[in-house]
C-alpha cells in the first residue's frame, strides 16, 4: 500500500471519535475499584476505634498524604499521556505528599512523644502495610495502565511509574482507614516502601504496555 492510499483510508476513518484519555482512565479505575475494596473489606476493614481516631490529626493527616499522592499523580499521568508533554513544570506536584509528611513529622517531633520513636517508626502493622497496600494497588494499577494505554506517552516507563503512584496512593488511602499506626514516621517509612514497590512494578510493566 502506498502512502497516498494509506492517507485516503485514514481520512475515510476521520469520523471515528475516541474518548479522551481522562475519561478512559476514570472508567478503568471505577471498574477495578470494587476489587480493591473487596480485598479491603475481606481482609482488613476499617479500624474499630475509627470514631475516636478521627479526632487525632495524625490519623487525618494520613489521608491528606495519600490523596496528595494519588490526585496529583492522576493529573501528571494525564499530562504525560500527550506525546509532546514533558515532566518539567509538573514534577513538583509529586512532591506534595513529601512536603506534607515532612511537616507532619516536624509537628510530631515537637509534641511530647506518646511512644518511643522506634515504636512509632516500626509500629504494629509494618508487615501488613507492606502486603496490603500492594495487594489492593494491583487491580488499580492494571486499571490505570489500561486507561493510560489510550494515551501516547513518549516515556512509557515513566508513565507506568505514575500509574503505580496513582494506584498506590488510592490503595494507601483505603489502608490508612484500617491501620492503627498513625505516626507520620510510620507512614513515611512503610507507606513509602509499599508505594516504591508498586511504582517499580508500574514502571516495568508500563515500559512494555504503554508503547504506542
Amino acid at each position: 500500500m502506498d502512502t497516498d492510499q494509506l492517507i485516503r483510508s485514514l481520512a475515510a476513518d476521520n469520523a471515528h471519535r475516541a474518548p479522551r484519555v481522562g475519561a478512559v482512565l476514570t472508567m478503568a479505575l471505577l471498574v477495578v475499584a470494587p476489587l480493591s475494596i473487596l480485598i479491603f473489606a475481606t481482609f482488613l476493614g476499617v479500624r474499630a476505634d475509627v470514631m475516636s481516631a478521627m479526632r487525632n490529626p495524625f490519623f487525618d493527616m494520613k489521608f491528606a498524604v495519600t490523596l496528595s499522592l494519588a490526585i496529583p499523580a492522576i493529573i501528571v499521568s494525564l499530562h504525560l499521556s500527550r506525546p509532546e508533554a514533558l515532566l518539567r513544570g509538573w514534577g513538583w506536584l509529586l512532591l506534595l505528599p513529601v512536603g506534607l509528611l515532612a511537616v507532619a513529622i516536624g509537628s510530631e517531633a515537637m509534641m511530647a512523644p506518646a511512644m518511643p520513636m522506634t515504636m512509632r517508626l516500626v509500629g504494629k502493622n509494618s508487615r501488613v502495610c507492606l502486603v496490603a497496600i500492594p495487594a489492593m494497588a494491583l487491580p488499580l494499577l492494571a486499571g490505570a495502565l489500561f486507561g493510560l494505554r489510550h494515551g501516547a506517552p513518549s516515556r512509557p516507563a515513566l508513565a507506568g511509574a505514575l500509574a503505580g503512584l496513582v494506584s498506590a496512593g488510592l490503595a494507601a488511602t483505603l489502608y490508612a482507614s484500617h491501620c492503627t499506626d498513625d505516626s507520620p514516621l510510620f507512614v513515611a517509612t512503610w507507606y513509602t516502601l509499599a508505594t516504591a514497590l508498586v511504582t517499580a512494578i508500574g514502571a516495568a510493566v508500563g515500559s512494555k504496555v504503554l508503547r504506542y
Partner: protein
Amino acid sequence: MRGREDEWTGLMRSAMAGDDAAYHRLLRAVTPVLRAAARRGLARAGQPPDQAEDIVQEILLAVHLKRHTWDSEAPFAPWLFAIGRNKLIDALRRRGRRVFVNIDDFAETLPGEAPQETASAGEVAAQLGTLPQRQRDVLQSIAVEAASIKDTAAKLSMSEGAVRVALHRGLAALTTKLRDH
C-alpha cells in the same frame, strides 16, 4: 515555517470538527516533511533511506489513532513531531541500532528539501495480508480502489456502519502489528 505550522493547526482543528477533506489535506501536507525527517534520521543512524516510507506510514497511523491526545488549543507541529521522533526511535531500535535521534530531525525540516513523491512501503502491505478477510477487503476497497464508504458497503454487501467499524479496526490492528512484529 511559522505560517506552515499555523496552517497545520488550523487544518487539524477543522479535521477534529468533522471536516474529512481538511484532514486529508493535512495528512498530505505533513507527509513530505515526515519523510524528509525520517530519511535524515536513518542517514544519521547509518541506515539506508529506503526504509523511510515504512516509518512515515507508522507515524501516520499513530497520528491517526492518537489524535484524541492532541489539545486543540495547542499548536499541532510539536505534537506531530513528538510522535514522529517516537516512531523513528522505535524503528531504529527494532533494527538493532543504538539510537541518536537528534531532536531537531523533525522540527528542522525545511519545506524545500521534502521530496513530494508517494512511495510504497513493505511493512504495512505485508501486515495487511494478516488481517481478517473483512477488514482487508474494506481497506483494499477504500485505500487502493479509492471507493467511498458508501460504495464499499454496497460492493461488499455490508452496512455503512459495519464498513466504518471494519475500517477502524483494520487500521488499529495494522498499528498493533507494526509495533509488535
